[in-house]
């Protein structure tokens, strides 16, 4: 968990229409393909979606695509992405696949989880 600064893809972004279907990868930057697993319209799930949207707008404007999966309607999809916790955010692209569980209320941690910011430790 070295804090060595890696190139941060999130900062080399271009504006793109956010509700686009997945666009092929652009040459110099990546589109974030995000899938949010929820189970019905629970407050946690609604909160997670709102938080996600806000974070994406702030840090990945025009460069992301959010797909919502309601497990109550598509229970068979839980297996594929190994979903246990709800809500779970899966970053499907860029690879590798990343998972963030919870209502995404801690923006810092979401950014770290999405590799938009290197993990920071207080005591190092």
């Amino acid at each position, binding site marked *: 968990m070295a804090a060595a600064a890696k190139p941060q893809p999130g900062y080399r972004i271009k504006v793109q229409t956010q509700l686009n279907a997945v666009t092929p990868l652009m040459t110099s930057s990546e589109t974030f393909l995000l899938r949010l697993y929820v189970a019905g319209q629970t407050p946690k799930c609604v909160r997670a979606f709102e938080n996600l949207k806000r974070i994406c707008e702030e840090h990945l404007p025009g460069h992301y695509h959010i797909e919502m999966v309601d497990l109550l309607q598509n229970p068979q999809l839980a297996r594929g992405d190994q979903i246990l916790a709800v809500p779970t955010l899966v970053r499907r692209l860029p690879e590798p*696949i*990343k998972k963030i569980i919870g209502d995404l209320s801690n923006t810092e941690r979401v950014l*770290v989880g999405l590799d938009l910011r290197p993990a920071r430790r207080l005591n190092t």
Partner: protein
Amino acid sequence: MSAIQELAKSPTGIHGLDEITNGGVPKGRPTLVCGGAGSGKTLLAASFLLNGIVKFGEPGVLMTFEETAEELASDLASLGYDLGKLVEEGKLVVDYVRVERSEIEETGEYDLEGLFVRLEHAVSSVGAQRIVLDTIESLFAGLANPGILRAELRRLFRWLKDKGLTAVLTGERGDAALTRQGLEEYVSDAVILLDHRVEEQVSTRRLRIVKYRGSHHGTNEYPFLIDRDGLSVLPVTSLGLSHPALKERVSTGVAKLDDMLSGQGYYRGSTVLLSGTAGTGKTSLAAHFVDAACRRGECCLYFLFEESPQQLMRNMLSIGIDLQQWVKRGLLQFQAERPSRFGLETHLASMQRAVAKFKPAVTVADPITNLLTVGTHSDVRSMLTRIIDYLKGESITGLFTSLTPGSRELEETDAGISSLMDTWVVLTIAEQNKRRRRWLSVLKSRGMAHSDTVREYLLTERGLQVLDGEPEARSGGGSKAAAGL
């Protein structure tokens, strides 16, 4: 059987386990199986589930947190279960749940609804009545928030009960508690503990029912086996004492000894202990018994723990007993095994399998004292109890020889096992007038008026010959050696 209202039970189909639990695990409720690594938890849980499908027509869900579906399928294939086929037939769902902490970032509140959705989906897709979660505790390694996990586990157990699922959950043995995460707190119905101990380089597996609410159950530790036929528990005492008691008698092969046993020899289907110090002729007396049985056309299975069959047959030929002829005619089979080759559990299994295959009328185990090199007295005793229960259930007459160390008191040495035996014949040897003389007596023989005399006998070219009447030694100076039995 009892006035207490017994719970509804789901049979596990595991040999022995259903006997000690009086019918299986609690139906529609969770049962916890805990034990250390390699103790057989997964196998027990999987057997419960697969037997449910194959033997009892109850579809099932196997949710595994540790092994992938493929790994599990290949493990269980060796026991004759075809997971792929059961899945295809729509009777089984195997769901491998992978939780890897390093891949998961946690931020804010969550619950395990995803797990519930998967369970619900799996259960409803096959109409499952049985479910196995192996091992749910892996969640604690994968997720950081124990508070949420505990709350969700409680919800999970409630969910299982509401669904009326007969569940078996496995848990890793903890240092202070039964399981690392204290799962036993959530399961109030039944807890089974598995143990795998190695004592003096010999491993023994044991099973104990720690808790079984509202039901009778055996409280002992029961040895259990894992072999190519799967898992089987040896309910040492619970087979009960319900075996048939035959009135028919079988000759000991020595007419004078028959006389001492109210004229007719041992009861068929009973157990006989022949004990004595080295060189007293225990094996010779056993050979007489085998010879007599073969002459009647009965099959004999002879377990040798010390000599090879060839050596034994040569030695017996020297006292005029030709066992070779019976081997040739297929009436006599030997199974020679060094005791140290396996643990007691394996010996027991292999003996039982041999008996089941050959279906003899008579078995001999010679000498059982050699088994003490691979187990403690109480282990050997429990093993013998199981063998004896089995033999009696099949009405097979069992003869066991036991070597008494010269230095120790006879009764003390054999006390542990003698209570399992119906007839106990004691052989002794003593020096008198520069000659080694042998004496024989019937220490006990249940259900018959047996002789209380100590008779001298000789090992001759024509076999073991019991001398008539009171041995002369009774009145002589050396009598104490003989009478001091």
